[in-house]
């Protein structure tokens, strides 16, 4: 199949890559750029394990063609903290509140929570539960994820994701 050239800025780094028109963004991120944090859990846009941030919105990257992301600014879990710097408040909070177990949903959950806190800086429990309802977790029962997001919202450095 004929490939096309797509430009992406991922975690602040610019890439020009050749993709088939049908290639999904999750596959480009995972297999071409080797950013394997985001995962594939369902193929039908239900589970949210593939969630990344595209142009300031949470996107399930299994349902976006890479071609559609041409020119986009993308942030993945690997870009949540500065390389070598302290972890993002959400990353600390998920660990401190035991907001993860198998870790498979975690990168998508973190990226959704990151965007949610930009949308609603101090969300109440209901807003968090609705806000992450596109991301499934099979292990935690969500209770500690909710606590983690609440705790991160109150941390001082919450807005300080790595500058891109």
């Amino acid at each position, binding site marked *: 199949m004929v490939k096309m050239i797509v430009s992406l800025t991922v975690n602040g780094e610019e890439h020009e890559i050749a993709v088939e028109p049908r290639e999904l963004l999750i596959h480009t991120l995972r297999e071409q750029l080797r950013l*394997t944090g985001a*995962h*594939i859990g369902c193929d039908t846009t239900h589970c949210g394990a593939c969630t990344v941030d595209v142009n300031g919105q949470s996107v399930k990257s299994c349902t976006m063609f890479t071609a559609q992301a041409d020119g986009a600014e993308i942030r993945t879990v690997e870009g949540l903290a500065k390389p070598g710097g302290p972890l993002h408040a959400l990353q600390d909070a998920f*660990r401190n509140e035991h907001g993860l*177990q198998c870790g498979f949903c975690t990168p998508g959950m973190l990226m959704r929570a990151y965007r949610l806190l930009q949308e609603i800086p101090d969300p109440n429990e209901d807003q968090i539960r609705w806000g992450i*309802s596109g991301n*499934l977790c099979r292990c935690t*029962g969500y209770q500690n994820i909710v606590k983690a997001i609440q705790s991160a919202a109150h941390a001082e450095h919450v807005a300080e994701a790595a500058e891109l």
Partner: protein
Amino acid sequence: MNDIATIPSPADRAEKLEGIGCKRKRVEDVRFTQGRGNYVDDVTLPGMLFGDFARSPYAHARIKQINKASALNVPGVLAVITAEDLIPLNLHYMPTLAGDVQAVLAHEKVLFQNQEVAFIVARDRYAAADGADALEVEYEELTPLIDPHKSLYADAPVLREDIQEKTVGAHGPREHPNHIFTWSVGDEAATEAAFQSADVVVKEYIAHPRVHPCPLETCGSVAHMDPVTKQLTLWGTFQAPHVVRTVAALITGIPEHKIRVIAPDIGGGFGNKVGVYPGYVLSIVASIVTGKPVKWIEDRMENLSTTAFARDYHITAELAATKDGKILALRSNVLADHGAFDACADPSKYPAGFYHICTGAYDIAAAFVSVKGVYTNKAAGGVSYRCSFRVTEAAYTIERIIEVLALKLGMDAGELRLKNFIKPEQFPYKSATGWEYDSGDYPTAMAKAMQAVDYDGLRVRQAQMLEEFKAGRSREVLGIGISFFTEIVGAGPSKNCDILGIGMFDSCEIRVHPTGAAIARLGTKSQGQGHETTYAQILASETGLPADMITIEEGDTDTAPYGLGTYGSRSTPVAGAACARAGRKIRHKAQLIASHLLEVHHDDLEWDVDGFAVKGVPDRRKSMKELAWAAYNNVPEGMEMGLEAVDYYDPPNFTYPYGAYFCVMRIDIDTGEAKIERFYALDDCGTRINPMIIEGQVHGGLTEAFAVAMGQLIDFDENGNVMGASLMDFFLPTAVETPKWETDYTEVPSPHHPIGAKGVGESPHVGGVPAFSNAVNDAFAKLGGVHTHMPHTAANIWTYARDLGLQDS
């Protein structure tokens, strides 16, 4: 703080150890929160190819012809493997853990929808999928057999032509070509006599529908057969990697030492990743054929429709009792739908798992349990979905039927339980089905739970709401779901339990380095339970080395000692015990070294958190850090250098965790919607290693129980089309539906486990399912209801309310 020996106070040193009982933060989270986990689909090797399956659209059909060229013509497709190609290798069938065989690729016939028909190998996953789509297969449709109640009809279609002539299966005589086994336990005559003479008997048909564990990560593997060294490396989603290595050696003929199985991080298992699947085998075959590494990763629809379902037990339960509520006998007959192949993952001697723990927490003098397994045109499986073998089914049976008995007696369901509990002084308690319960204090746990939820107050409120409903002033009723469950976990003693003839021991090997850091390897495999954190806590308490100085490794069969893996809540009861005992061996050797260094008899030394001190002279001590160093340069004469230990632990008995759960649920009669007002879970898992992780396990297990009871179902139409094999249909609760959980505990240690721990990961699922279902049923108990089946979706509850005539009032 690596050198804790300088801290003067023993209590402060103990805290710094982060041993048993502390809420240690998880080691695993550091990589998982940064996207640095390493799951099987993250494994990439140079030249790696991708495999994908062409699958059957029919549940029962004869394969007339496969046109390989149709797929081989697709750009990027390199090979098409069918059963015909596997026959010369004798790989078209593989043995199952249940003593049956399972088709690796369908040979002549397909037996369930989405069965594997051909394996397409291609340069990338898109081309492999194109090839699978393009493959032309000609089928002749046959009559499907979907209802297990009809499997043994004289005119039922014969499903398994490959074993049609076998009159004896792995578990005894077969009475019909679609019959797998009939297995029974208990005293049938004594049970019948008790039923004959009892004041009160109840009998209920209780279906436990087919569901699926559905971990967020699907199954997959990467196989690399090195064409030069003939060494096979297999990465995959394996809850039991060592067993996979042995099975791979047995079915491929590759010597076991030439096979290295690696289970990397696993994205949840819940029983789905215990078995061996055709995809694993075909990734190996394809790697041998192509000389390249080959990756196979399921998509969600394949996962839900082909790999290891759970439950599908069609249960008849009966209780006999005196009129004042003393239970005299239990009888349960089960029809078990195992699908097209018997691929249940149970210890060899137990084709129905430990279903016969279904006498539960009660002192019942007589019991008889019989389970009949049959074939249908559905996917194979029957794994334990977040429970020990068939223990959720067992807990559901007793906890549902005891409610039916309470209703018949006109007794309060809580009071009936209290009246029949095994008493603390009866432990160790021998059950009528042959188990020996190790320990427990059920009345104390129940009393604590009843008080916490204000049980009497709840019943008053329930009666008031019922009055309001009957008076036409409200359309809501209240259900109070009680579940007092007892599990049997930690399989298991080799006298009872083996898998393919291998005893179900587990193991720990620990190596302490000169500086007092250590690595320990185990035969189990975490799928999110946090083993890297908790095993280190056990070892910290036992060896006096800080948990932060101990690396835990699992999952690589080249480095880890042999073990039977993680499922059935066996990691803590079995491998956790091996950990403790290996730690004690380290400590014992350290004591001899300390005696040598301090020039006193080793009996004159006492353990002091992280080292040994001369009795009565606490200043004369050697810390473990010092003793580890000495192990490499100054040991007593005749002693080997080094500080290593290994322990293979064959448990003397199972462990029997238990708990008291209460679910308070409001049900809207007109919409069928159920709102969980409150869920209280009290667990007794014996010694508590990490309370934070225990709480997390309970939250997660309750959420899965909620999903099973209130919504999950793998359903089929009359043609055998699977009706709910994507997350569009299969219910996985989001944060919005999921209730809030309250957790509590009592702590009765296991008397035979080295640290008294019993395991907890599955309790909330086992106990949770009946709690939710009892709440729904209880809501209708005074409105003419006796029993309604799961899943309790709004539609099903609405229909039930309508059938009870409640919607015209």
